[in-house]
C-alpha cells in the first residue's frame, strides 16, 4: 500500500548507514572468504616501544598504590596517581590509534617462554599484538578506566587510608591485566590477563571484606569464573596441539586454518577434524564464564556487593566484554567449528531473555542494572553467533558507555542516599537540589539502553544485531526473542527511571546512614527519615557523568562515519582485524535489496540457504520499524504502570507516591510468576542443590577419609616403632638368665650354622 511504501521509503533513507555499500561486496561466499583470508595473511611487523606504556603505566600505578598503603598514606594521592597514570595510558592509546597505518604489528617487552626443541617450538613472550580490534577495545577500556577512576576518587573518599590505596591498587592491576588480555600477542598473555582480571574482580568485589555477603559474592565470582577458565585453558592446549602455536600472528597465517576456513565458508564441515572444532567449543565456555552467560551468569548480580565504580568498570564495561573479545579475536577458529557459533547465538539469546525477566522483578536498582548487563551481553554473544562481529563490537562500545553511565548514576544515588537502592523507597530524585545532572545523564543512559530510535547510539548497535538475526537463515526465532527482550529492556529500564527519578520527592535513607555520625544518635528511625538530607554529588561525579553522557550521544556519529565501506567506524576497525567476517548472507541480502531483485540461496557457514527478511522488507529496514516501535512501546508500558501522575509520566502514569504503583495490583493477580522472577527463577538454589550440595557432601566424605584413612595410615607408621619396641623390649629385661640365654642361644645358632656348613662341605655322615 501507499502507507507501507511510504514507510518503506522513509526507513530506507534513514537506514542507509546501516546498509552495506554496493561496490566491495560481490555477494557470494568465496569472495567473502578470500576477503577474510586476505586480512589474515597480512604481514605482521614490529611496532614502537612506547606502546608498552599503555600496559605498564597502570602496573606502575599498582606498585605506587601498594607503596602508599605501606606508608599509610591518608590522602587522595592514590586516586590522583591512578588517574594521571591511566590518563597517560589513554593518551598513549590515542596516539597509537592515530598513528596506526593499517598493518598489525607486535611490540616485544621481554622474553617469557621461548622454547625450541627439534622442529617444534613453544613461544609465548611478553609481547603485544596491535591491530584495529585491539585499538578499538583499548580506547574504551583506558578511556572508561580514567573516567571511572576520577569518579571513584570522590565516591570512595570516605574510605581514605588503607582502603583507598587498596582500591586503587587493585584498580591499576585490573587495567594492567585487561591490557594484557586485549593486547597480548599470544594465548598465554590472554590467559594471564584473563586470570588477572578475575583476580582483581575478586579483590574489588570483596573490597568490603568485613561484610560476609561481599566476601561470599567475591568467592562466587572467582569460582564461577574458574569453571569457565577451565574451558579456556583446554582450548589453549588444544590450539597448541592442533596448530602447533599459540601466537596470534602464526595462528592466523596457519595454512591448515585457512583450508578449514575455506571449507567452512561454504558450510562444508565434514573435512574439518573434530579436534579443531572442539577448540572453539572449549574456548566458548571460558567466554561464558567471564561474560556472565547462561549458565555461568550467577556471579554477576552478586558482584554488585562491590563498590559502584567497580561495578561500572569491571562488570559493565571491561571485564565482561573480555568474552566478546575472545570470540571476536578468534573468530576464524570459531568459524571452522560447526556448532560453536550456533551455540553462542542460542546461549546469548537465552541469557538475554532470562536476565530481562529477572531484571523486571527486582527492586534493587543496581541489581536491575546488573541483570541488564547480563542481558545486553547476551545480545553481544548473539550478535557474534549471527555472524556479525561488527554489530557485536559496536554494541560492546555503546553498551560500555551507557552502562557505565547508568551504574555511575545509580552509584551517585547510593552514595547520596546513604546506601539506599530500593526503588520503592526513592522517588523524584531528579528534582532534588543538586541532582539535576544526575537526572539528565541517567535519562540519557536509560534511553540508550532502551534503544529509542535514532536518537540513541544503543539503537543503532542493537539494530545491527537484530537485523542480522533475520538475515542469517535459520535464526528467525532468535530474532523474535531478541525483539521481545528489547521491549522488556525498555520496560524495566524506564521502570527504574520513572520510579526513582521522577514523581513526588521522597527519599528514605539506606543502611549506611547509621554509620555516618551526622546526627546525635537518634534511635528512632522515623526521626532519621525526617532529618535525613541527601548528599548531592560533587564535581568529580558530575563531571564523569556528563562526559559519559556526551560520549554515549556522540557515539551515534560512529554509525555514520565510513558508513559506505563498512558498517560505520566500528565496522572499519573490525574489518581490518582477525574478527572481520563478511557474512555472505548479509551481502546477498543487501545486494538483493539494492538491486531490487529476488533473493536466492547463498553458500555460507550455516548452509546453502536464502537470507531472511522481516515482513518481506529488507531486514535492516524492517528492524528499524519493529525495534523502534517496540522500544517506544516498552517505554509507554513503563510509564503507564510506574510513571507518576502528570507530564512526568507522559500523562498516562498514575503513581502518586514512592512505594506503590499500578503494577502492584497486576503482580498480585499474576500468581507465582512475579515471585519466581524476583527470586531469579531459583537458579542459584538449583545450582546449590545440584552442584554445591553434593560437593559439600563429597568434601565431608573426603574429610572423614582423610581423618580416618590417611591420618590413620600416618599414625600407623608412627605406631610401628612402638610395636617394634614392644617386640624387642623384653630382651632388655634385666634378668641375668635372659641375657645368658641370649648368649648361649647365639652360640648355639652359630655352632649350628658352622657345623652344618662344615658337614655339608665335608660331606660327613
Amino acid at each position, binding site marked *: 500500500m501507499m502507507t507501507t511504501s511510504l514507510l518503506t521509503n522513509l526507513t530506507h533513507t534513514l537506514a542507509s548507514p546501516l546498509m552495506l555499500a554496493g561496490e566491495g561486496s560481490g555477494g557470494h561466499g568465496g569472495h567473502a572468504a578470500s576477503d577474510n583470508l586476505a586480512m589474515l595473511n597480512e604481514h605482521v611487523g614490529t611496532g614502537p616501544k612506547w606502546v608498552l606504556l599503555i600496559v605498564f603505566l597502570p602496573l606502575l600505578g599498582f606498585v605506587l598504590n601498594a607503596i602508599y598503603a605501606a606508608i599509610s598514606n591518608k590522602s587522595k594521592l592514590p586516586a590522583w596517581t591512578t588517574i594521571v597514570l591511566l590518563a597517560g595510558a589513554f593518551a598513549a592509546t590515542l596516539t597509537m590509534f592515530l598513528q596506526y597505518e593499517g598493518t598489525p604489528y607486535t611490540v616485544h617487552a621481554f622474553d617469557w617462554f621461548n622454547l625450541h626443541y627439534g622442529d617444534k617450538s613453544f613461544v609465548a613472550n611478553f609481547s603485544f599484538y596491535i591491530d584495529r580490534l585491539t585499538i578499538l577495545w583499548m580506547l574504551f577500556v583506558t578511556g572508561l578506566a580514567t573516567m571511572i577512576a576520577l569518579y571513584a576518587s570522590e565516591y570512595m573518599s570516605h574510605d581514605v587510608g588503607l582502603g583507598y590505596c587498596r582500591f586503587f591498587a587493585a584498580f591499576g592491576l585490573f587495567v594492567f591485566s585487561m591490557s594484557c588480555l586485549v593486547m597480548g600477542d599470544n594465548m598465554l598473555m590472554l590467559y594471564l590477563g584473563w586470570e588477572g582480571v578475575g583476580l582483581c574482580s575478586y579483590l574489588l568485589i570483596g573490597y568490603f571484606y568485613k561484610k560476609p555477603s561481599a566476601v561470599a559474592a567475591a568467592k562466587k565470582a572467582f569460582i564461577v569464573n574458574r569453571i569457565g577458565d577451565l574451558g579456556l585453558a583446554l582450548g589453549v592446549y588444544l590450539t597448541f596441539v592442533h596448530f602447533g602455536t599459540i601466537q596470534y600472528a602464526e595462528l592466523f597465517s596457519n595454512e591448515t586454518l585457512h583450508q578449514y576456513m575455506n571449507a567452512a565458508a561454504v558450510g562444508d564441515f565434514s573435512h574439518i577434524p573434530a579436534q579443531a572444532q572442539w577448540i572453539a567449543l572449549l574456548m566458548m565456555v571460558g567466554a561464558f564464564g567471564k561474560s556472565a552467560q547462561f549458565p555461568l551468569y550467577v556471579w554477576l548480580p552478586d558482584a554488585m556487593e562491590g563498590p559502584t565504580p567497580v561495578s561500572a568498570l569491571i562488570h559493565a564495561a571491561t571485564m565482561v566484554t573480555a568474552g566478546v573479545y575472545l570470540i571476536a579475536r578468534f573468530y576464524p577458529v570459531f568459524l571452522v567449528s560447526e556448532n560453536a557459533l550456533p551455540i553462542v547465538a542460542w546461549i546469548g539469546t537465552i541469557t538475554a531473555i532470562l536476565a530481562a525477566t529477572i531484571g523486571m522483578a527486582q527492586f534493587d536498582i543496581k541489581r536491575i542494572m546488573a541483570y541488564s548487563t547480563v542481558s545486553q551481553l547476551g545480545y553481544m554473544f548473539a550478535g557474534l553467533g549471527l555472524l556479525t562481529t561488527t554489530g557485536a563490537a559496536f554494541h560492546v562500545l555503546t553498551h560500555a558507555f551507557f552502562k557505565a553511565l547508568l551504574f555511575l548514576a545509580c552509584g551517585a544515588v547510593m552514595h547520596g542516599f546513604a546506601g539506599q537502592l530500593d526503588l520503592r523507597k526513592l522517588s523524584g530524585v531528579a528534582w532534588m537540589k543538586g541532582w539535576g545532572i544526575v537526572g539528565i545523564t541517567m535519562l540519557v543512559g536509560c534511553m540508550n539502553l532502551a534503544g529509542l530510535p535514532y536518537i540513541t547510539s544503543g539503537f543503532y548497535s542493537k539494530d545491527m544485531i537484530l537485523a542480522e538475526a533475520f538475515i542469517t537463515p535459520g535464526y528467525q526465532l532468535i530474532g523474535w526473542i531478541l525483539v521481545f527482550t528489547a521491549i522488556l529492556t525498555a520496560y524495566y529500564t524506564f521502570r527504574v527511571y520513572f520510579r526513582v527519578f521522577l514523581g513526588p520527592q521522597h527519599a528514605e535513607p539506606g543502611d549506611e546512614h547509621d554509620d555516618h555520625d551526622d546526627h546525635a544518635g537518634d534511635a528512632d528511625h522515623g526521626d532519621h527519615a525526617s532529618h535525613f538530607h541527601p548528599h548531592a554529588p560533587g564535581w568529580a561525579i558530575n563531571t564523569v557523568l556528563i562526559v559519559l553522557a556526551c560520549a554515549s550521544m556522540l557515539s551515534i556519529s560512529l554509525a555514520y562515519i565510513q558508513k559506505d565501506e563498512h558498517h560505520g567506524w566500528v565496522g572499519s576497525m573490525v574489518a581490518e582485524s582477525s574478527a572481520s567476517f563478511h557474512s555472505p548472507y548479509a551481502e546477498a541480502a543487501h545486494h538483493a535489496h539494492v538491486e531490487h531483485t529476488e533473493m536466492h540461496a547463498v553458500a555460507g557457514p550455516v548452509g546453502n540457504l536464502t537470507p531472511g527478511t522481516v515482513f518481506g522488507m529488507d531486514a535492516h529496514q524492517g528492524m528499524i520499524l519493529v525495534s523502534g516501535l517496540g522500544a517506544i512501546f516498552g517505554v509507554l508500558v513503563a510509564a503507564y504502570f510506574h510513571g507518576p501522575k502528570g507530564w512526568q509520566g507522559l500523562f498516562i502514569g498514575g503513581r502518586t507516591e514512592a512505594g506503590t504503583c499500578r503494577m502492584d495490583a497486576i503482580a498480585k493477580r499474576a500468581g507465582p510468576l512475579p515471585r519466581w522472577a524476583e527470586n531469579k527463577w531459583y537458579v542459584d538454589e538449583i545450582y546449590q542443590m545440584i552442584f554445591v550440595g553434593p560437593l559439600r557432601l563429597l568434601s565431608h566424605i573426603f574429610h572423614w577419609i582423610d581423618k580416618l584413612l590417611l591420618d590413620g595410615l600416618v599414625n600407623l607408621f608412627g605406631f610401628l616403632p612402638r610395636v617394634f619396641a614392644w617386640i624387642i*623390649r*623384653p*630382651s*632388655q*629385661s*634385666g*634378668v*641375668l*638368665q635372659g641375657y*645368658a*640365654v641370649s648368649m*648361649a642361644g647365639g652360640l648355639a645358632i652359630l655352632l649350628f650354622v658352622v657345623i652344618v656348613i662344615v658337614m655339608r662341605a665335608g660331606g660327613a655322615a
Partner: protein
Amino acid sequence: MHSMQMFESFQLAQLAFPAEMSASVLAPYLFVSAAMFAIGLIGFLTRKNMIIMFLCTELMFQAAGLALIAFGRHHLGSDGQTFVIFVLCVAAAEAAMALALVVLLFRHRESLSASAWKELNG
C-alpha cells in the same frame, strides 16, 4: 667283636699303658663331656640362686676339662692334662672372685636370688 674290643681298650687304659685310642673309644668320653656341659648350661640358665648358678659354671668348666683330657689321651701327649691343670687353677681363681662378688651382692640386696637385681622394667 665291638664290645670285646672296647673292653680290651679299657683294660689297657687301666694299666696306664698308653694304648692308641680309636675314635669309638674316644666317643663316650666326649659324649659325657657334652652332657655335663649341657647340664651345666641348663642349670645356669634355669636357677635363680646365685651360688647354684656358680656351681653350674664350675660344672661347665669340668666338662671342658674332661674333653681336654680325652683328647689329650687321644693324641698320646700330656698337653691335654697339663692344660687341664691350668684350667683348674683358673677355675679356682675365678671361684674365689665369684664368691667374693656373691658376698658383696648379698650384702646389698640381702638375697641370693639373681632376680633381686632385676631393675629394668622391660
